[in-house]
């Protein structure tokens, strides 16, 4: 295929549009991703001397109990955070998907936590969760629970507390996606179901849920990636503690890389996070392709 002058001109014009953004994108995102796969096979410390060590970092990781704790905790966070946030955001969307006075205000209220500073929010929640004087435990004692949990000071309850705050913060965001999904379900379907004598629960089960199939799948995919990379919430709320009870993968990378200056080893752990998110994305790609056929 010969390149015509017009095609060449188009390519030139096209690139000229893309280049200002692409230059920054290539230098700051693409290049680091490629370099990651080199650094992970070296012992790179803060003085910037890289020595090729082959798979040593990965072997070390395999025997590193803290790494496995971080991975297990990340899975723990993910496995609770997803179903909780999914049901909370879908519930909110169903509640708010009608023309009632004040609904617009509620939608706004639900979304606001998502765009407020994590530093401020986690501190407020730590105060609310405060074991001795915090309002949450005061309330629990008031309703008759003599020994309420220690929340972020207890190894068993710190993760649930963190998951709760994560859900509280994000549900308004996913609610918006569900609201948009609900708008695409034709009203006639609900009419027809009603004529056929379906009760509200059946209408939800056989009209709403199938109609939200694509939205739900999409939401689950972003939530999965979001949960695997969870970081600032944990760093600010518990710093991974008490002990290692809330240590997650991203934080472990940060810890090894920026606190202990073991760039090589931290990069090897990064590759695990990278691989998990890639797998999720590839899975999403194939499911979407199947649906679009």
């Amino acid at each position, binding site marked *: 295929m010969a390149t015509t002058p017009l095609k060449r001109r188009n*390519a030139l014009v096209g*690139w000229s*549009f893309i280049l200002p953004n692409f230059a920054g994108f290539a230098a700051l995102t693409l290049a680091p991703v490629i370099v990651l796969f080199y650094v992970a096979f070296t012992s790179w410390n803060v003085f910037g001397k890289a020595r090729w060590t082959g798979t040593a970092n990965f072997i070390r990781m395999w025997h590193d109990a803290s790494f496995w704790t971080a991975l297990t905790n990340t899975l723990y966070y993910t496995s609770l955070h997803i179903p909780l946030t999914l049901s909370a955001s879908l519930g909110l969307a169903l509640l708010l998907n009608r023309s009632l006075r*004040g609904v617009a205000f509620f939608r706004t209220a639900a979304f606001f936590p998502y765009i407020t500073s994590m530093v401020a929010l986690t501190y407020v929640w730590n105060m609310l969760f405060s074991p001795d004087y915090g309002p949450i435990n005061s309330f629990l004692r008031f309703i008759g629970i003599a020994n309420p949990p220690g929340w972020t000071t207890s190894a068993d309850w710190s993760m649930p507390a963190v998951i709760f705050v994560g859900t509280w913060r994000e549900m308004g*965001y996913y609610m918006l996606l569900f609201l948009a999904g609900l708008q695409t379900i034709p009203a006639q379907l609900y009419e027809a179901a009603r004529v056929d004598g379906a009760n509200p629960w059946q209408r939800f089960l056989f009209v709403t849920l199938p109609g939200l199939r694509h939205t739900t799948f999409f939401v689950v995919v972003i939530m999965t990636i979001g949960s695997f990379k969870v970081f600032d919430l944990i760093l600010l709320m518990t710093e991974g503690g008490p002990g290692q009870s809330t240590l997650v993968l991203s934080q472990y990378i940060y810890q090894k890389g920026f606190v202990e200056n073991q760039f090589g080893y931290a990069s090897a752990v990064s590759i695990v996070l990278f691989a998990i998110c890639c797998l999720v994305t590839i899975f999403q790609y194939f499911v979407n392709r199947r649906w679009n056929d």
Partner: protein
Amino acid sequence: MKRNTAGRVLLYAGLIIAAAALLLPFYWMVSSSLKANNDVFTIPLKWVPDTFMWRNYGDIFAKSGMTTWLTNTLTLSVTVTLLQVLTGSFAAYGFSKVRFRGRNVLFLAYIATIAVPWQSYMIPQFILMSKLHLSNTLFSIIALQAFGAFGVFLMKQFYETIPEELSEAARLDGLSEYGIYWRIILPLSKPAIASLSLLTFVSTWNDYLGPLIYLRKPDLWTVQLGLRTFISQYNAEYALIMAGSVLSVLPIAIVFLFGQRYFVEGITSTGLKG
């Protein structure tokens, strides 16, 4: 009719409980910021401060680098937003309105990186930035945030809804591609630009990890980083910390109040952020 009213009452009750649960932490933040420090944790709880301690807000400015932090954060947020909107909308035009070879593959590379968490490549990125002697400068955060794939994606989504005939007609009238971008497409995409600006502004304002890694010098700190340090230094000054928190959230609340519509449109049209 009667059943309907009962249902309505129930619905409102549900809504009010949900809203209270959502907003309670914010109420706690504001009311604690106006209390005397000893009154923050009391049993039973005081929902309204005895006396309103407005001086907490003066004290936080006096006791911390709040002025510097706010100035830095504002500088960063505005610069990043401008750059992201400019380069993002420009690149999106290339991806959506100019046909050339390799375009789709390139776009796929963009999209793929949206799904790759920053946490997984922050280490090599930091190494590269340090080699370029960019760490510990405000510029590092600008570079980090301004060229994201997100803006390109959001703008492209919007451009696709603008009919191709419009650009065709302009081409026949002899307008260059740059002319079409500047005079036709850009003016039509005001809502998308508003969405992108607000989302970028807010995420730069709230960013904690980028500044944590790159901005080590106290005179470069952002409000998030500064507040966090203040918390670790004065961790029993609850009321002051809450005043600082209110200050860090207030600008976002104001931006949000005026631009809610654009936030919602931006999020539902891309479904990606965070």
